[in-house]
Structures are given as C-alpha cells and as structure tokens.
C-alpha cells in the first residue's frame, strides 16, 4: 500500500494535469455554448503548459538564469543546479500562440453573434441550414437594409 502511495506521490503532477485536461476536453466536446468551448480550450492549453513546466522541474534546482554572471554571488556558481530551460522556452512560444488563437476565436464569436443573435451551437446550425441555399443572397440583403437604415 505504501508503495502505491509513493508511486502516486512521485507522479502527482501527471494526475493534476490529466484532471485539468479532462475538464477542458469535456467542456470542448459536450458544451453547446461557443464561449464555454473557448474556455474549455483554454483550460486544455493550461493543462499542457503545466505538464511541460512540471517535466522541466528538478528537485533543488533554481530558475535557469546563470548564477555568478557579472561577479555577483560568484562563489555559489559551481554547485548550482538549473532546471531544464528547453520546455520553458517551448511553453513561452505556446502561450503566445494560445493568446492569438483565443483572440481570433473571440472575434469570430462576436461576428457570429452579430449575424445569428445566438451563441448556442444548435440555434446557429439550424439557422444556417435554413439559410443555406440563399445564404449569400440573405447576407447581401441584410447589408443593404443596414446601409439604408443609416
């Protein structure tokens, strides 16, 4: 029994990230609201970030900034352990891409809401199916009506 607890303790970071990932994945595939889907995607991405950063960690290690550069604390420089810098760098890239995708997704959602008046997937799909044959004609007439209102 204690062996089991040791195994779980040594790998508890994986349990946490798998739990977070399951929450995000469930929100992405089960929720009908588009905003909730985007939130789920963000939770999913955060789980992946956590996974990578926890892989980079080393017990007793410090942040990957060289100690002793420029003469400060140079006496400690020899016996410092650094955590793995490569996953940090990868995740810095991934965070920026996550921000970009979230921004574009939210902009698209705002446009969808302006067009269909709803964020529910069912309503949007039903409206699209109804409009499909003359969709472009409908959009053109809507634009003409808006311009004439102004």
């Amino acid at each position, binding site marked *: 029994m204690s062996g089991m607890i040791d195994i779980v303790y040594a790998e508890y970071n994986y349990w946490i990230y798998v739990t977070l990932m399951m929450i995000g994945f469930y929100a992405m595939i089960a929720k009908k609201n588009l905003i909730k889907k985007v939130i789920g995607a963000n939770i999913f991405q955060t789980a992946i970030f956590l996974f990578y950063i926890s892989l980079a960690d080393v017990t007793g290690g410090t*942040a990957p*900034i060289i100690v002793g*550069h*420029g003469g400060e604390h140079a006496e400690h420089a020899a016996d410092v352990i650094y955590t793995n810098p490569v996953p940090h760098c990868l995740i*810095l890239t991934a*965070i*920026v891409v996550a921000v970009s995708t979230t*921004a574009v997704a*939210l*902009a698209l959602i*705002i446009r969808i809401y302006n067009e269909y008046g709803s964020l529910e997937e069912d309503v949007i799909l039903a409206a699209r199916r109804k409009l499909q044959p003359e969709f472009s004609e409908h959009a053109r007439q809507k634009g003409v009506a808006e311009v004439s209102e102004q």
Partner: protein
Amino acid sequence: MSKIQESVIIRTVVRIMVPFIELFALYVIMHGASGPGGGFQGGVIFGAAIILYAMIYGIANGKKKMSDSLDRILASTGLTIYAATGLACIAFGGMFLQYRAVPLLSDPAQVSKYLIDLVEIGIGITVLAVMISLFFDISPPEPEVEEAEE
C-alpha cells in the same frame, strides 16, 4: 458609465499607478537578458497599463493615449525591427539572425547580447500594440465622449 468608473478611489489609484506599471514594463523588457522577463511579458504588462486606463476612464480617453493609427504603426514597427536585425546579420556576412557576425564590438558574445536586447524591444513593441488593439476592437462602442479629469 458604470458604477466602478465613477469611484473616486479607483480613478485616483489608476491615474497614479499607470506610469509605474509602464515603467515596470520597460524594466521587464530591458531586464529580459539578465533576469526573469522578456519582450512578450513586458509588452503584455505595458498593454495592460493602457487597457486599465481605458477601462476606467473610457475607451475614448484611452484612444487619446494610443490612437488607432499609432497602434498600427507600432505593431508593424516591432516586427520590422526584428526582421531588420536578422537582415543586418546577413549584410555583415553571417546567416539570418546570426548575431555574432555583426562587427560592432570586439567580443562577439557582447554583440549578441545587445542585439538580443534589440530583438526583445521589437517583440515588446509588437505585443503591446497588438494587445491594445485587441482590447479596443473587442470593446463595445461608447456613445458620448467624456473629458479626462485632471
């Protein structure tokens, strides 16, 4: 105008804090080479300062601080600084972004350090401009223009 925007405490604190947040953002960008920080982080902090101001004092006053045309110019300037640094390395006979090929100082590692700082500044400018433009694009239109309190 919502209730939170009328609060004297919030308006005063925001007016006092915004310059310090901007200063901290510049510190983070310039300190990216020798400590925790970098262009992405500093750019986001600088953008957050302007976004905070625009949230409390209104979008119209925020656009006085950072107009749409300035935003567009800054967004492309940062990317141009980055690409121009890479092309300058080609001009001095190196490969794209091979910083040590630029014969500015005697020590190639020092040249590399200063060019990395330049690249970080370029990243920071692009990120801050894009963050502010994302906020202004997604924010709803404001009916009336109110004057900033001095």
